[in-house]
């Protein structure tokens, strides 16, 4: 693979993304929703209603806003792939960069960077919001809840893990978009997989099956890394969970790439 060609493909994809106003809005939405929901959740916590000893995982709850915030970046990722088909700009794209692998590389590369950047801002904002709100609700160092700090191993892992999660979701969405080539289909599938599986798990009474569903659900498994307390209660280990999500993302990307390479550019 020719380095200049790859760089040019990346540069073109970056230009495409940065010249669409929806890109900025979707990234802003991701960050704002993540921070906002995290704020709402931590704001609703109250130390006095907690049992003794209080074992709430305030870090995980501060970062829980990503459950809703991921939608923004997911839509961006899916659209980056599928809009080329709905607007037929796949034609000039492939005329400009006929090596299809480079097109995918460009899209995924730029999306991964954008996703990671959005993730870092969202995580930083969420943790800062938590730091601001939690002491007011009684979660102080005296009560056993020191302010979340990145110097702490577990907190750092939760933060990095959440950024990773957002990056993987971005790849997952882009892969699905390449595979299905249809906005409605790719979005519905992605959202159904992400949100549907935890909900199905609550319906099922058998704890063994609940455990299984949670372990292999992309969102639940991927966010297991946010836990800083009660780690044994999680259905899957932190990095194993990220691994599960990576498998989903990889499967989507690989199958999307294969389909893109082989099919006609319709």
């Amino acid at each position, binding site marked *: 693979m020719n380095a200049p060609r790859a760089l040019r493909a990346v540069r073109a994809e970056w230009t495409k993304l940065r010249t669409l106003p929806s890109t900025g809005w979707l990234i802003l939405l991701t960050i704002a929703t993540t921070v906002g929901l995290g704020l709402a*959740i931590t704001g609703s916590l109250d130390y006095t209603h907690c049992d003794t000893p209080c074992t709430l995982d305030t870090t995980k709850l501060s970062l829980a806003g990503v*459950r809703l915030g991921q939608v923004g970046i997911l839509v961006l990722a899916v659209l980056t792939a599928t809009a080329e088909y709905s607007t037929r700009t796949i034609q000039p794209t492939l005329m400009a960069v006929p090596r299809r692998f480079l097109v995918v590389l460009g899209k995924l590369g730029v999306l991964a960077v954008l996703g990671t950047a959005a993730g870092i801002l969202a995580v930083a904002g969420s943790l800062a919001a938590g730091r601001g709100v939690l002491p007011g609700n009684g979660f102080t160092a005296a009560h056993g809840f020191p302010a979340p700090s990145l110097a702490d191993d577990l907190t750092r892992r939760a933060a990095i893990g959440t950024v990773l999660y957002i990056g993987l979701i971005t790849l997952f969405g882009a892969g699905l978009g390449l595979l299905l080539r249809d906005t409605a289909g790719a979005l519905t599938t992605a959202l159904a997989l992400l949100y*549907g599986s935890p909900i199905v798990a609550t319906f099922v009474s*058998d704890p*063994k099956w609940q455990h299984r569903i949670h372990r292999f659900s992309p969102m639940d498994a991927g966010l297991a890394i946010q836990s800083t307390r009660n780690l044994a209660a999680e259905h899957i280990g932190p990095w194993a969970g990220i691994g599960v999500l990576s498998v989903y993302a990889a499967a989507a990307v690989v199958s999307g790439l294969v389909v893109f390479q082989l099919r006609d550019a319709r």
Partner: protein
Amino acid sequence: MTARESFPRLLLAEWTKLRSVSRWAITLLGAAALTVGLSYLAASGNKTDINAHPNFVTGPRGEPVADDFYFVHQQVTGDTTLTVRVASLTHEPDRDAADMGSGQMTKLDDPSPFAQPAAGIMIKDGTRPGSSYASVMLTAAQGVHMQWDFHADRKGSTSSGARWLRLVRSGNTITGYESADGVAWQKIGTATPKNLPSTVEIGFYVSSPGAVYTSRGGGGSSVGERPTSAQAAFDNVQLASGGTWHGESIGDAGRLSEKGGDRGSGRVTEANGAYTVVGTGKVGPQPPDDDMVEAALIGVIAGLMALIAVGVLFATSEYRRGMIRTTFAATPRRGRVLAAKAIVLGTTSFLVGLVGAVGSFVLAVPILRKQGFTAPAFPEPSLLDGSVLRALLLTAAFMAGVAVVGLGIGVLLRRSAAAITITIVLVLGPLIVGMILPGTSPKWLMYTTLAGGMATQRAKPPTITLAEPWAMIGPWAGIGVVAAWVALALGFAWWQLRRRDA
């Protein structure tokens, strides 16, 4: 063509549009298939052993009930009358929830009259837990009630102080009375317990249901129950026949409890014809949390996604290549176009949802029965049961409603990506958030968002200990919320259609 004639033709035109796009037709069929398929799969993974380790006994009608209390009684044959004055009733103060797991604990208040600490008089078919009975009681916070056979309840006066209570048996009819002074009596009601034999146990009793605590946090939730007890003072006990009173705890011995906790013992002490009784336990219905019909409808979530996609596309495809101009040229009255689309989509989605729901029910219920969902905890649901029919029809209506909301949002936003995302998030987002929010805060989410529609899937009323947020509201409330959203979405869409260019 008069206005009245053209609307049916408009409906036909929109129906033709809907059915002629093969992708949509396939997705509609797929919605039903997904619903049934996922319901079937989920049922296979759904097990319960509640009948093997029950936290209930079987009542006279074969239903799960709780029958724990402290009974001071004696045997009596034939017609009889028992009069008693309840001098006082005190309930022990709530205890803090401790050692119940992580997260915040919130005490749940059960509004049911069967969940009140009570002191009263009872006539019962022996002392076997679950046997038929009728009782008149003074409750801690809901005044005087008359209850029988674990399901029937009549409200008396709302007094909370000392009260006279009387039970009169005449053949198979039990009549309950109350009085403030023991002289002037007011009738509360007439009970017809199932087959009360001529020889029964009659006496006075105290019951005190356990306090339920729930915790929710970090994606999981748990419930726990702490036993409570109540103390009552009885005097002026008059029974037609003489005999010795015998006090015992009903329901204690040999019963396993899922909810744990030490039952504590009741007791009775006597001093000069006045009795002080301490009792614990609940006398009333004890339905399991799970609902079999709801468990058979797990696939609705999947079908819902597909219907949202079709609903949105039915609107946004008109904007793709400017087809909307053709549509509005043919029918300048845009409100009617929107109405026609909504009717066609809603009806089709309703039918698809109904097929999915009924199919799920038919396929999943036998599987569930094999996995432990049987009587007495779970009576077999039949398609002819009123509540089952209601659940299936309302579920189909829920799915249709969400599809139409998707249509409205699609008209508003004109971009399929945004509309699909927003609609799906409106339905699923609150559920996910509700699973994290502590305590009972998810309830307001269910009352205000489309997620509340999930409540339509239950055939039984929600129990107090349910973990799922959407089960916190009733099915009619759920469909009401969905209907409100449909009106809002279509209303906004219509307003926008009139204002802007095609």
